[in-house]
């Protein structure tokens, strides 16, 4: 299913369908998201200590892990909510500027947005996972000189994300133009 060929070190495994559930905390208005593999997306509000979490939105999505065929090690991507192309970001922002700079070398910039980002810089473990994700996509490219670079969310996209920016299936009919 993943187009693995001889010479491809990584292959996609544990592909599973489900939903990205976005929720907010009633008092603090904090937002977070998680992946639900259930057939019907959970939308009930619930308590977590003094906090009350309410359903905000959902999107169908597909989650996956990557297996290193040389070592058999599986890298799990449970934390990955989706990817954002730099082209979906504000043109006066850092991501877009970096993306345009990378474009001069035929490098396409994406940002990996996680469900529950930790405070401070991304953990070393997450950087290592993104190294694997970058290898997976780049080893499959056929267009000459093209490169993909997926960066951790150094830009705080999770905190200010617009669902339509993220490559999960949020609100994808919003820009539809009938012929």
């Amino acid at each position: 299913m993943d187009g693995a060929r001889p010479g491809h070190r990584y292959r996609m495994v544990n592909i599973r369908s489900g939903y990205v559930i976005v929720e907010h905390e009633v008092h603090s208005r904090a937002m977070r998201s998680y992946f639900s593999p259930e057939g019907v997306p959970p939308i009930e509000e619930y308590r977590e200590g003094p906090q009350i979490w309410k359903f905000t939105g959902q999107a169908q999505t597909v989650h996956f892990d990557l297996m290193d065929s040389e070592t058999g090690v599986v890298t799990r991507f449970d934390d990955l909510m989706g990817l954002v192309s730099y082209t979906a970001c504000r043109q006066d922002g850092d991501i877009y500027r970096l993306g345009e700079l990378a474009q001069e070398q035929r490098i396409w910039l994406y940002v990996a947005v996680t469900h529950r980002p930790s405070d401070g810089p991304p953990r070393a473990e997450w950087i290592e996972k993104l190294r694997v994700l970058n290898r997976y996509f780049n080893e499959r490219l056929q267009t000459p000189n093209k490169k993909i670079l997926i960066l951790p969310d150094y830009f705080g996209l999770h905190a200010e994300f617009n669902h339509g920016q993220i490559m999960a299936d949020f609100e994808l009919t919003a820009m539809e133009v009938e012929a």
Partner: protein
Amino acid sequence: MTTKEVAERLELKGLTPVFDKPVTGVYISDMVSDVIANAKAGNVLITLQVHNNVIAAANLVDIAAIVLTRGRTPAPEASALAEKAEISVFSTPMDSWQVATKLYEAGIR
């Protein structure tokens, strides 16, 4: 078969310049996360979806061309993104099943 040959054989309307690339197969989906997980480099993507994110996902997995069915046309910024990514985008009044059938008859598996 190449993207140019596919366009000629199916009489597709080009919405971007044609970037002639080898076609490795076909994938049909309207979900970007599904495209990321399952489409392969060099595939022709058949879809109804015209959102920018479909182009971004197609670029990530190095799709050769996108065929928008039932006469869909993307917003100008989506077409511009596809052109920048050198992904040919075509439109056709056919539905996805008809396009898939014709591609199968053309020998693409």
